[in-house]
Each structure stands twice: as C-alpha cells, then as structure tokens.
C-alpha cells in the first residue's frame, strides 16, 4: 500500500490515523447522489437506510455482536459520556456508585467528575507502575450500589492492555453492575470479541482505525437498558437520536471490515515495529525511561521519557525535521499539568514532562524507524545541552 506521506513520517497514530483510501472511496457516493436521509420514506431515503444497515452489520461482525447491539454515535467521547451518564441516570434508584480507574481517557474522567457534582459517587482505582488495574482492587471496591464499572481496554498513552475478561468476571461475579470498556485504541490491532470478553458495553471510534473523525459506536448488549444521551427523533432504535451521518457510518463499516480481516497481521507488524524502535533507542540514547508495560503492549505504542528533555520542545524539534509525534507534557494546556496517566503510574513531573509518544500505524515502514532513531539521537543531545535539569532529571542546586 502506498505511503500516505512520502516525505514526512507520521507516527502519531494513537492520536488519529490517516484514512484508508478504500474507506474514503466507500463514503464518496453518499456525499453525492446518495445523499438521502435514512428516515425518509422515498427511494433515496431507503437507499441510505439500507447502507446504514449494511455498515452496522460490518461493525457487529468486527466485534462478534448482534447487529442491533451496535449504536452509532458521534465519537468515542460521546459513547463514553452516553454510557456513564445514561447508566447513572437510568439506574440511580438502584445505586449511585461508579468505578473506573485513574488512567482512563479524559472523556471518562471528566464525565465522572460531572456526575460527582450531580450527586453520584465515583471510585477511581489506582494502577501499578505499568498501568495495570488489579482485579483484587476492583473486587474490594464493588458495592451493592455499584451500577457501573468502566475500565479501558488499552491505554492510549502508555499502551497498557487491561485484563478485561477477568475484570468483567469479577464485576459480574460480585455485583449487579454493568461492565463497560473503552476499546477505542484496539480494533485492527488486537482481538475484540464482546462475547469472549463477557462485557456489557464497549466504546469504539473510527478515526483510530483508518476511518473518519467524528463517528463512534457503542456496543450495548441487547438486555442492557440505559438512558439515551441525545434524545430526539428516535434514530438508532431510540438509543441515539439525530439524522444519521450516512457517509461516515458507511466508512466506519468499511474500516471495520478491513480491521477484522487484518488485525492479526497488523498486530504483529506493529508489535515488531515498536519493539525494534524501543530497543534501538535504548541502545543509542542514555537515560531513557520506558513508560507503560514492558510487553505485551498496545501494538504500535511507544512511550519514552528522555530525562532532562522537555516533551513539547522535543515534539516540535522532531516536527521541524519531518517526524510527527506526541507528548504527555502539556505546556499549552490550561493547567500546565503533565499527563494524568504518567502521574498515575508514579512518574514525577520532570519525567512526565519529558515524555514522547510514538505510535506506529499500518502506513509506517521499517525505514521510518531508522530515520527516526537518527534524528531523535541528535535532537535529544541538542536539547540536553540546553537543559536546566541534571542528568537524573532533577533541578539540582
């Protein structure tokens, strides 16, 4: 497959992915002649409706769920807000306690914080230094009034893959709570089988799997009943109203079809890439800390702290040299706080602010790795010659 960008190396695939050209192609008719609203009775409407149905089948196939267990939403953020608020409000008579963990995506954490303001109670589980949630901890926190447990499948920053099956078992074995997992980072890289995992709800989005930005999905087991987040015309079986985004739904279907077919091969390729990259870096650059589990990690994900080198500066230096990456430093966020995930695994602020996330995708090649390591070595050395921190990443005297 043709590389998406010839001269620049894009290794920020955990942030968003380039669109697969086949996905783009599948969407195009729906921006043209087949622009119908699936809710219309006429032919154009019915055509659109059929296409949505077909796409729903493909997403269901990917997850091994039933067709009508898939609800299309506007993003993973929406799916997660839907699950948290929908469950909280619909089950509030049964209980007002929710359990999640400290490394979840911000959309889970801030929705939880809002629910706390509304009188719900949330337990944020600690994780260990590799980012794992412990099933024993979970068991201890489960209560009679726990209505939902939400633990992500793979962490978007540090690549930790949670023991979802076990966590779901503990939840169901010790409470009446629903179990939800945010699997936005997973499809196309690892197996995501809702039956096998034994979960009640699962969040997906398309733009992490070579589909378009602005569409998500929620798997909700048939017998799970929660309030909608978007009330209205009754689309998506009344679970999520709003005129369907037909082109993106079709694109999501196509992306799912491709992801289902290729996940094993891709998972292996991406794992090889991240392993090789980590090893080369560790061989050539001193004072580098790996954030996240040693192995196995989310295929393609690398998170390193170059001691003494501020992350945002490094990202911009790499960008100048044509390499697109991310950092858990947040010099431009309102609060100037580094990643909550790095904090949760016990990284101090200096280390957290020194993190670099490299995330490989299917359009990356072996040559990318070589070039990246060369450039990184130079830029890290240069920034270290400016740094005000000592070799241990401390302020010193």
């Amino acid at each position, binding site marked *: 497959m043709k590389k998406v960008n010839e001269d620049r190396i894009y290794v920020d695939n955990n942030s968003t992915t380039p669109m697969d050209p086949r996905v783009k192609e599948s969407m195009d008719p729906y921006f043209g002649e087949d622009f119908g609203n699936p809710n219309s009775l006429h032919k154009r409407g019915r055509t659109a409706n059929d296409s949505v149905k077909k796409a729903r089948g493909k997403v269901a196939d990917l997850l091994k769920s039933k067709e009508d267990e898939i609800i299309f939403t506007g993003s993973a953020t929406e799916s997660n807000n839907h699950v948290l608020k929908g469950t909280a409000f619909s089950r509030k008579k049964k209980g007002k306690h929710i359990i999640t963990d400290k490394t979840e995506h911000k959309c889970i954490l801030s929705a939880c914080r809002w629910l706390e303001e509304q009188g719900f109670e949330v337990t944020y589980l600690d994780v260990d230094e590799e980012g794992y949630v412990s099933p024993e901890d979970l068991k201890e926190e489960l209560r009679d009034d726990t209505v939902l447990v939400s633990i992500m499948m793979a962490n978007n920053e540090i690549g930790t893959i949670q023991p979802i099956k076990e966590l779901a078992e503990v939840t169901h074995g010790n409470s009446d709570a629903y179990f939800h997992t945010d699997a936005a980072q997973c499809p196309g890289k690892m197996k995501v089988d809702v039956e096998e995992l034994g979960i009640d709800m699962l969040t997906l989005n398309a733009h992490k799997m070579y589909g378009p930005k602005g569409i998500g999905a929620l798997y909700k087991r048939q017998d799970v009943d929660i309030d909608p987040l978007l009330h209205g015309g009754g689309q998506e079986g009344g679970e999520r109203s709003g005129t369907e985004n037909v082109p993106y739904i079709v694109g999501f279907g196509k992306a799912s079809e491709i992801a289902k077919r290729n996940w094993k091969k891709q998972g292996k390729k991406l794992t090889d890439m991240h392993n090789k990259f980590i090893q080369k870096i560790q061989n050539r650059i001193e004072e580098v800390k790996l954030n996240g589990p040693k192995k196995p990690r989310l295929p393609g994900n690398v998170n390193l702290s170059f001691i*003494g080198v501020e992350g945002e500066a490094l990202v911009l230096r790499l960008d100048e040299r044509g390499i697109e990456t991310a950092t858990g430093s947040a*010099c*431009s966020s309102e609060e100037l706080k580094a990643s909550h995930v790095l904090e949760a695994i016990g990284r101090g602020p200096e280390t957290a602010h020194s993190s670099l996330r490299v995330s490989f995708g299917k359009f990356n090649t072996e040559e990318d790795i070589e070039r990246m390591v060369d450039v990184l070595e130079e830029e890290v050395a240069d920034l270290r010659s400016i*740094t005000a921190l000592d070799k241990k990443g401390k302020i010193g005297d």
Partner: protein
Amino acid sequence: MEHFKNPSNMGEMKDPDVTSKVGNPACGDVMRIYLKVGKRDGEKYIKDIKFKTFGCASAIATSSVTTEMAMGKTLEEAESIEEKEISEELGGLPKIKMHCSSLSANGLHEAIYQYKKKEGLDISEDLKKKHKIAQKTLERTKEMRRKHGLDEE
C-alpha cells in the same frame, strides 16, 4: 521560531559571577541564568549572560530572546525588562504561553537579585518581591516532590 531552533546564549558558563534558578518542573519549566557582570563608566553591566532551560519551545525561545535583550545592559536597565517586552520582542505569544515569558523575566531578575545580594548592593523593594515569588515557586516544587515520593523514581 528561529530562537527555538537555534537559541542564542545557550549553555553553561564557566566561572559565572552568579547563577539563578527559577521555575517549576510540575509545570514543565525550569530555567537557569548565568551572569558575568562588568563595569563600564562606573556602572555595573551584564558582560555575559547564558541560560539553560528545561521547557517547551516557547520557554526556550523566550530564554534566548531575554538573554539577547539583557546582554550589555546595565543592571538597572536589565532589572526593568518585563515579560511583556519579551513576548513583544518575539512577535507576541499566545495567551496560554505567556507564562513562558514570565519565566525568563523571573530568571533574569533572580540572577540580578542574587548578584546584588552577594555583592552587598542596594536591592529595590520591587526586586525583593520578585525574588520572594521565585523562591516560593521552588519551595512548592520541592514540597510536591516530597509528597509524591519522587526521589525514589
């Protein structure tokens, strides 16, 4: 962003007259300023200045600009360089990055404070206040690191 790619006056200085240290690693910014002070027409002036910064692109660029601005100035002149001028010199900074220019200004002022203190020179009330703020930030940092048990890391 030439000041980011090729910063001026960057690096350590051998035998500085004084060194300052400002910032807060919790916010991802730490800066050191090294000064050599000379005398010209009976007035003390900044003969040489260098910086080291752990911080984002804007922090590095403002450090570079600040040292360029301070170089050759009398202590009194340098003392009066404010963050606003620094960011203007850089062609303006986004609001969210204004703290970076304040970091560099603080670094410069703190270095002058340390120098004046060491030499027993008069220190204006304004400069004393600035020094106190810089100290507090560092204190808070240390506290935080203790709290988080970060030295085990």
